[in-house]
């Protein structure tokens, strides 16, 4: 079996790669969003802390 034949998936390429492609996309988007959320809250906590330092 060569790679061209493998990726052709006997005519089902678009269905199979469409499924796994979406899975990969969803996992990447979720990881990016979760990391972004963490970066946002940490940034906010820094700002809150700096504001307190200024006041005291």
């Amino acid at each position, binding site marked *: 079996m060569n790679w061209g034949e493998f990726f052709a*998936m006997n005519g089902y390429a678009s269905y*199979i790669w469409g*499924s*796994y492609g979406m*899975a990969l996309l969803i996992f990447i988007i*979720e990881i990016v969003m979760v990391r972004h959320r963490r970066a946002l809250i*940490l940034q906010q*906590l820094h700002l809150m802390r700096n504001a307190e330092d200024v006041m005291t």
Partner: protein
Amino acid sequence: MAINWFKYSSPSTFYKVAGKMVPWFAWSAAILFIAGLYIGFFVAPTDIQQSEAYRIMFIHVPASILSMFIYLIMAGYAALGLIFNTRLSSMMASALAPTGALLAFLSLWTGALWGKPMWGAWWVWDARLTSELILLFLYLGFIALHASIDDPRRADRASALLAIIGSVNVPIIYFSVQWWNTLHQGASVKFSGTSMHVAMQQGMYTMMLAVWLYAIAVSLLRVRSIILERESKAQWVSGLVEVRR
């Protein structure tokens, strides 16, 4: 030996424990994804009836089962939060919802891409497909309801009720293929055994474990942010290394 379980139900302790656990779950998930895809695409044989199209199973079945399982875990945490008034349980429920929703969507998407070549239709209003779509709406409803109430504790209680009532849908999804005449096939793996090829089973179970570990890793990562957001005024948060930097 007495373990003080309530120690782990305090957000400050759990924040640190979760942080230590995330890399372990994430790396084991990554390794199992590679192993599962290898078995699924290079070891498992071509199916006699479905040719190569059946290989969608290795992502479709894990996504579908985990979407139902995560809902029950989410409803369980939400119920704990409602009964014992533990903040962390409610935060866990909120952390699980987006992952469950994405897996429910993935189940429907991969199902459509499998249905088209096998049934000739992307979508049919069959009991299995419809109840899974309702599961996605329940997840979205939970997230939207929680987000629409400003006071987090009130939001926890309201959305917990939705989660608990909605859990009646999970057995409906599971048994839909037995209760009604569905275009969707019945379970291939039963308690009484299976007719599936060994390599196909191994690929499916490996992928299921991989998705499971991934879901744990990403939910723990998310709950850490939720803890920080909701405890932002607590003394222990301002003492954290990542905050003091």
